């Protein structure tokens, strides 16, 4: 919140008289007001000549606080919300869906970690095509020019519902592919701008048509964060954590499943560990480790972190070619 003098325009009760009263208690900004002992302030206002206007000013500030508080929900409301809104989205791989208990959950941030060429982008493309086939809309942030529309067309055309060769049946393929929107993002600030814009756009649309956004994929978020992480100053860390917070809030408020990919770096003893460090570990709700045996289509996936599945559980799945 702003220093008190900037609030004067919107809240006329916070005039210069009130501001000088607050200044006498070393209160210059909204945060200072929150930290100050309220009873002591009211008592001091009583001793002033214009105590009524001062108390009105204090009430004004308190009402501003009330307006900012989110509503409290009890456990039953959360359960109903989870059952109605936070649905499971199948990824298209039976092995992964079985491991996750049905698929990706709306409202949660899932991270895929793996070495180079372990199948992360393929998993993203497959999830995008599966969700689009079922009628949901997908937003794909691509940082490495790896979004391959041809691959999506192949994946969509793989089930018996759509036959791509037939001229007459191009309609369904087009409809499905038009639900996937791909954005090229090369800069973390650009990503923030786009996420803010998305937040505003989603908030302003109360009732959406049948194509509401169900899945948001960022491939890969580590290539956006690595240039700013480390070095002098904690800005990189702060941006990384606020990115995670923004994604989780988007997921929860608008019932979207968010999927991000991360790469691996060398750890101790020659093993690899996920990139982005210790602070990022607690950000995603679900962390999955992908690996692929050399020159084969069979991939392994195991849980590193999951709220309801034991970590270390593994599954195998085959990649379609």
């Amino acid at each position, binding site marked *: 919140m702003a220093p008190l003098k900037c609030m004067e325009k919107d809240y006329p009760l916070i005039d210069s008289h009130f501001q000088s009263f607050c200044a006498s208690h070393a209160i210059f900004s909204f*945060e200072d007001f929150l930290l100050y002992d309220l009873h002591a302030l009211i008592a001091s206002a009583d001793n002033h000549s214009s105590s009524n206007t001062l108390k009105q000013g204090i009430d004004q500030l308190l009402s501003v606080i009330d307006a900012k508080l989110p509503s409290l929900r009890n456990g039953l409301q959360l359960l109903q919300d989870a059952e109605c809104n936070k649905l499971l989205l199948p990824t298209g791989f039976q092995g992964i869906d079985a491991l996750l208990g049905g698929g990706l959950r709306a409202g949660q941030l899932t991270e895929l970690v793996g070495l180079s060429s372990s199948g992360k982008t393929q998993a993203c493309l497959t999830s995008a095509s599966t969700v689009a086939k079922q009628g949901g809309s997908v937003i794909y942030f691509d940082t490495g020019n790896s979004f391959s529309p041809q691959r999506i067309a192949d994946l969509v055309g793989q089930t018996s519902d759509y036959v791509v060769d037939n001229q007459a049946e191009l309609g369904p393929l087009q409809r499905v592919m038009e639900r996937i929107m791909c954005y090229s993002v090369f800069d973390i600030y650009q990503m923030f701008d786009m996420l803010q814009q998305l937040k505003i756009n989603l908030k302003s649309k109360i009732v959406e048509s049948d194509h509401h956004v169900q899945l948001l994929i960022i491939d890969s978020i580590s290539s956006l964060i690595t240039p700013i992480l480390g070095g002098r100053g904690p800005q990189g860390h702060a941006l990384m954590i606020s990115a995670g917070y923004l994604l989780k809030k988007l997921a929860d408020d608008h019932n979207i499943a968010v999927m991000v990919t991360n790469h691996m770096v060398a750890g101790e003893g020659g093993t690899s560990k996920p*990139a982005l460090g210790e602070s990022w570990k607690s950000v995603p709700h679900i962390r999955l480790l992908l690996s692929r045996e050399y020159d084969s289509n069979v991939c392994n996936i195991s849980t590193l972190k999951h709220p309801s599945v034991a970590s270390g559980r593994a599954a195998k799945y085959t990649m379609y*070619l």
Partner: protein
Amino acid sequence: MEVGMLPISASKRGKLLAAGYTTLHSISRASPSHLATDIGVSEDEACEILKYASQTSALDPSIGSSNASTLEGGQTAWTMLNEEKFATRITTSCADLDNILGGGITCKEVTELGGVPGIGKTQIGIQLAVNVQIPPEYGGLGGKAIYIDTEGSFMVERVLQIAEACIEDMSEYSHHFHNTVQDCEVKLHPNGILENIFYFRVCSYTEQIALVNYLDKFIEEHKDVKIIILDSVTFHFRQDFDDMALRTRLLSEMALKLMKLARKFCLAVVLLNQVTTKYIEGSYQLTLALGDSWSHSCTNRIVLFWNGDERHAYIDKSPSLKSASAAYSVTTRGIRNSNSSCKRIKMV
């Protein structure tokens, strides 16, 4: 804190936070002179901060967006699929290699080629710099090339040799497929090919990064550049780099810039890399240099290796190409198919 999302320097951010401005809303309500006195910067700097803040909060809910898309600035997969059908690729002059690449090197993507010394990386780089200039009538792009040399391995005489061989092959092709005399004329001259290669020599990593930053402006002025070849991207980052964390940051930022250039100007970026050994699963194996985090800085990754006496290329990583390998050879005329004495390059 929303102020953290503004692209301003750390000191200005600190001053804003110390003065009590933590959200963008609070900044946008202040006037420039007010802001300048509050945080102790000049009025120009305060105006700049306000400009950034208003750009971000100009995402006004009342403007909203049309019902067509939830977010602007992107393309649907369907439009991208249709665009892809018309994209031409840059041939490598080796039919087998072109086959595994789906026709050649794709534009809008960053392709990394890595291998042991002597495997032919620079040769492939030079061949691509010549092949990008093949005119559209012969199935090429008719564009220019930027060649960034960090090792000093660019030999002009070799480029001339390859250019002459390319022109000879083109005229041979046109003799077979065109009957009228005037169509047989190939309008290219080896000197013309040399003129269309923009050559940059960099001698340190700072020069390399500065050049990649400058390329945006350069390509704005030379819009027909269709390929950027960086030979090699590793050289200045391997020796004497004390701070590995700094190296990772610099490399990932450079990679993002190259990705952006590839997408923005629809050109191909080819990075040539060296090899190092890595301890995987109990043994030391050859992998490409610059570490695990660099492996995410390219769209496609091709490893070049020796198989007996033959040179082979293997697609290690690609979102759309199948894993396959092909053999190629380096001849006096450039990169060609191996085994066969076929001197004619396949024009599609």
